[in-house]
């Protein structure tokens, strides 16, 4: 027994030594490299979305691997960490990024983990740019958190407006227990929709649930006109399956998460009516589309992470934009020090991005006024642009 103890202890020391010697710098710039942290889920409920968002960031890094600050050209290195879509793992994951000396952090997909990590970034004074985390709480109390996407109140209202304008009067709202993203979107949708005069039936499903039979049946039983379920891609696939099996007979409405090739793949060959709001429509920037597709064809890992085909998700485009914003911020700051970057961010104005220009308001949110409404062409299994919808 003693031997095992001895072994463990010595292993412990060796490991500490190794890690300690791994070297780390305090400034963010280590010689010629600048580190940008990528705080995204690679597993868990939001793993699929997180990977697609990371793809955009990685592509950005491939297109623009360097940044010139002052007169010096620095290599940009991505420090990617998996937050496992889990609030309790998010804090240590974030701490990992901070400890490795990043200048700033991008992410995450899924608001809950961003909220959980906000304190860590705040304490370390490292700025973070949310890519597609739409819950208002992310930036509300954290001066370090910025974001380049629209917010849930906006998106929820947009969806409610769309539903009301399409003549729907009674909505079935499904969210996931403990998921800030879906709970938030349902909440804002409910507010806007009832204000317009609509009626809402609300239900929640527990973690790890894959059986959506009863939820679809409930929506049918209650005589709803629309099935609103702004949930994760994982759940979306199962919902589509059940909706198809039970002939749901009403349109399905969802938020930006559903804008994914996995959803179109699941819906292909059905007669469902799926409408989503999102940040970007493929074809909006042909040059970007072609570039990233070519990259994915080349890189088999990237292709797998995108779900096996080259259909673009809006979050990928957003990831790309976030990376470009990060580079601009570094340039504007004139240094790789997190504090300087933080100081430069509020007044930053970035143009020429894939999903539209970015400026930040006083809470650190992007000023966005319109969302894309897309509809699934279930015959071909692709998204089709419907219109741009605003909140008013």
């Amino acid at each position, binding site marked *: 027994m003693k031997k095992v103890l001895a072994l463990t202890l010595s292993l412990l020391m060796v490991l500490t030594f190794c890690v300690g010697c791994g070297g780390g710098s305090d400034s963010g710039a280590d010689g010629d490299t600048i580190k940008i942290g990528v705080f995204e889920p690679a*597993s868990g409920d939001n793993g699929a979305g997180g990977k697609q968002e990371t793809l955009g960031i990685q592509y950005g890094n491939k297109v623009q691997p360097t940044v010139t600050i002052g007169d010096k050209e620095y290599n940009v290195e991505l420090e990617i960490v998996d937050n496992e879509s889990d609030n309790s793992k998010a804090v240590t994951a974030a701490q990992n990024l901070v400890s490795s000396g990043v200048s700033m952090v991008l992410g995450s997909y899924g608001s809950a983990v961003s909220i959980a990590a906000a304190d860590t970034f705040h304490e370390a004074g490292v700025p973070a740019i949310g890519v597609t985390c739409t819950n208002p709480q992310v930036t509300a109390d954290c001066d370090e958190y910025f974001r380049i996407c629209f917010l849930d109140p906006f998106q929820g209202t947009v969806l409610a407006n769309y539903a009301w304008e399409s003549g729907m009067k009674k909505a079935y709202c499904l969210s996931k227990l403990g998921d800030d993203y879906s709970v938030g979107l349902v909440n804002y949708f409910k507010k806007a929709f009832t204000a317009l005069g609509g009626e809402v039936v609300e239900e929640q*499903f527990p973690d790890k649930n894959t059986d959506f*039979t*009863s939820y679809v*049946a409930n929506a049918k039983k209650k005589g709803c006109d629309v099935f609103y379920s702004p949930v994760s891609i994982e759940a979306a696939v*199962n919902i589509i399956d059940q909706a198809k099996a039970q002939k749901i007979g009403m349109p399905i409405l969802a938020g930006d998460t559903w804008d994914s090739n996995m959803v179109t793949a699941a819906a292909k060959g059905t007669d469902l009516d799926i409408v989503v709001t999102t940040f970007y429509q493929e074809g909006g920037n042909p040059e970007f589309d072609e570039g990233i597709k070519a990259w994915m064809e080349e890189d088999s890992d990237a292709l797998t992470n995108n779900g096996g085909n080259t259909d673009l998700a809006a979050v990928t485009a957003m990831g790309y934009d976030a990376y470009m914003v990060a580079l601009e911020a570094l340039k504007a700051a004139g240094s790789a020090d997190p504090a300087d970057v933080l100081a430069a961010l509020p007044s930053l104005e970035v143009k020429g991005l894939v999903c539209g220009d970015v400026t930040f308001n006083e809470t650190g949110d992007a000023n966005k006024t319109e969302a894309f409404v897309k509809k699934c062409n279930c015959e071909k299994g692709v998204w089709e642009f419907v219109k741009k919808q605003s909140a008013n």
Partner: protein
Amino acid sequence: MSLISSWLPYILAGIAIGGQYALIAIGYTMVYGILRLINFAHGDVFMWSGLIMVYLITVMPLWLSIICVIIFAIVLGTTIEKVAYRPLRTAPRMSIMISAIGVSYLLQNVALYITGGLTKTYPSISWLQKTVDIGPATTKMVTLITPILTIVLVVGLVMLINHTKIGMAMRAVSRDFETSSLMGIDINRVITVTFVIGCGLAAIGSVLFFSNYTGINPMSGAMPGLKAFVAAVFGGIGSVPGAVVGAFIIGICENIIKGAGWTTFSDAFTFVLLIVILMVKPTGLFGEKNIDKV
């Protein structure tokens, strides 16, 4: 009529999921009957059967991949028994349970690694996923097939247990482990056969389950596994018909709870049922009462 028609979809869904739980529950109840072990890894064997199917279907035809999935589950289950349970057979009960939890943790994490944490979509088996109308309800073919197939398999299994030599050996071992080993019964063989049956049925259950709920991720086996175990306890652990009845009851109740709007408590309800049965009739519906020997 309207009452029936509005509840029919839930009852149908309940029967279907109940049948799928039943196929998993048999593995739990048989292993428990013989080894007095909650095989926590059983739910993960079930998940792995589903996962392997996703990969197999890309290289071979459907019928062959179903057979391969069943074989895979059997091999996996018996390997787990050989590697993780057999060496600990004389160890305290807690150790072997911890080993089971460890295996479950390992299986989930390997699945997480291989899938990259992404949900995989189960291949569509068109005749199982065909939509059918039953009165006012619309559902998948698999909903109808499941209970029938479950009952056929269970009747077969009960016949096997009651009328064959190996069945008799199983009954003997479950009644008295030590004596039967002294009587010349090859315990290891009986245990292997138990795992073969349990895992084979779980693999069939996985085909039915994932045809109905098509997303598979590393945690897909955890909840169905736990619920199936509860079903086994509910029906009286060690009793095959008990496990099946328990599974159907749990499946139907769960869906009715959801239909009644108590969706938050749909999982918790299963455990409420478990605790109630443990308090009221700890031996389950069909279990036998034994007495502690001092």
